[in-house]
């Protein structure tokens, strides 16, 4: 299937075009943006990112590890310190809290890399350096028979250029 690329100046027009394309059933699309824009993200994928599951699992793992590690070590080598219980929850809460943040953060990074399929060694053929400057791009895979329609749709939403990516 050919891939069409539309070039835009404003994130608003990108969001409108993406909404229309998705509404028409063209789900295999990629948007290039020089900076993050809420409206574009909302249009491309209105569902919350799956990265949050990585964060949640990381955070839970962190809190369990924090308590388990400290309690296990204290009970393994029991020494009364300052008259406190061996398994001193208030003190270990600090460790558990820190590990929650640490594991949550690290898992978020991992989730970001996994979901974003990063690092990417090969550049997308539809990508152009101008999309890291001040322009936006929408690349969409369309069947041969819909090329003219999508071309028209993009132009009607203020695409300043529309082209086909060479295979």
């Amino acid at each position, binding site marked *: 299937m050919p891939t069409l690329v539309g070039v835009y100046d404003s994130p608003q027009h990108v969001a409108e075009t993406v909404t229309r394309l998705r509404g028409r059933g063209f789900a295999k699309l990629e948007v290039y943006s020089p900076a993050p824009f809420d409206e574009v993200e909302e249009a491309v994928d209105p569902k919350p990112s799956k990265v949050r599951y990585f964060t949640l699992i990381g955070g839970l793992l962190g809190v369990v590890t924090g308590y388990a590690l400290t309690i296990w070590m204290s009970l393994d080598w029991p020494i009364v310190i300052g008259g*406190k219980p061996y398994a*001193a*929850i208030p003190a270990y*809460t600090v460790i558990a809290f820190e590990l929650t943040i640490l594991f949550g953060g690290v898992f978020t990074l991992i989730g970001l890399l996994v979901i974003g399929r990063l690092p990417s060694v090969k550049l997308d053929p539809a990508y152009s350096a101008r999309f890291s400057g001040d322009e936006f791009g929408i690349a969409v895979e369309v069947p041969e028979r819909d090329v003219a329609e999508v071309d028209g749709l993009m132009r009607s939403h203020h695409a300043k250029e529309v082209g086909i990516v060479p295979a």
Partner: protein
Amino acid sequence: MTAADVTAGRVSPRPIPTALLGACLALVAIGVLAFVVGLASDADTAWRAFHVNYLYWGALAQGAICLSASFVLVGARWPGPLRHLAESLGAWVPLTVVFFLIGFLGRESVYSPWLHGPPPGKEGYLSAGRLFWMDLGILVWLAGVSVAYLYYSFRPALGGVAAAGGGSGLLRTWASNWQGDDAERERCGRKLQVLAPIVCLSFTFGWSFIAFDQVMSLTPTWFSNLFGAYFAWGGYLSAVCATALLAILHQRSLGFEGQITKDRLHDLGKMIFAFSIFWMYLFFSQYLVIWYGNLPEETQFLDARLGSQFMVDKSGINELQLSQTWAMEFFWERLKEPYAKLSMVVWACCWIVPFWVLLGQRPKRMPVILGSVSAISLFGFWLERNVLVWPSLVPTDTLAFLGFVQVGIAAGFLGAFALVFLIFSRRLPSLPAPQKS
């Protein structure tokens, strides 16, 4: 009055619904009755309940002005009409001075732990004269700054009143010497920029000292530098919750249609979520060092509220139990100590519920959920003020804060606060209809 009578950015006085007015007046009547009955039957209880409610509503109202001032300070545009809603809660602030003066008449009941014999070394600070003049000064200063802040915040919306030459009382006074819309907006904006940091600092320092003097001193041998900030933060957070609740109640109010957007509720939800964590953090950071130090002069305050299971208390514990103090059965056993369960309810209302319910994005945007969490938090903070005061005065009876007199006085304060809010937000000067955005 119809939507056509409302002009964006202008105050729009409207009648107070009779049912609401009647309910508020009924609550005030119940409060007055309960207070009078209380004074005749058990004056100590009546004055203590009065003290708790005066503190709760006072800190909330001043926190609301501080909330608005923080919006101004950071140049926040997202709150839109929420800023004036928060300010309307602050109309109560001048009354706090009156309630302090009334409450001081009951000093024998409230400050009994030190009034006639402060602990050695604290005689200079813990004296009725010092407390009266210093706290009166603080509250008068806060009232003055708050009224000035309200004046400059509402003044640009009074153009219509000035043009019509009408209005009465406060409205006419506030609208006098009108110099034109643009000039007033510019002048008042500049004044607010100056007043906002003053309001925030005054609230923080002022209510910290009021917390030291009027709450912490009730256990006169205990001290905590953080307590003032913790108490003031409770007031600020309850103001955010009250603003969220009012925003939801104003969703269909005249001129507010479409203005209490899901985005705005989402932002308020984020504030409640984050600030409740900070509230718990303030508590925990103080608790941890007290727990670690395990000095009787420090642990007494938390021991009287949370019970001994949260302290290192080895009396009657053998070596095996010591190693298991984190086990659940031990925990439940010690919850039977006075006020321990009540303190758990406070944690649940002020932190556990806001944290877990508002963790996701969707609950923050749903008025029913955000409104319920706000109401639960507000109730939680009322309980918390009770937990801070009562155990110092009645250490053994968990339910000392409940009873006809206590609940009646609380109802009276609720009615009076709602009445002041309604008068300010609907009559004098009334909320400006939001600019459509």
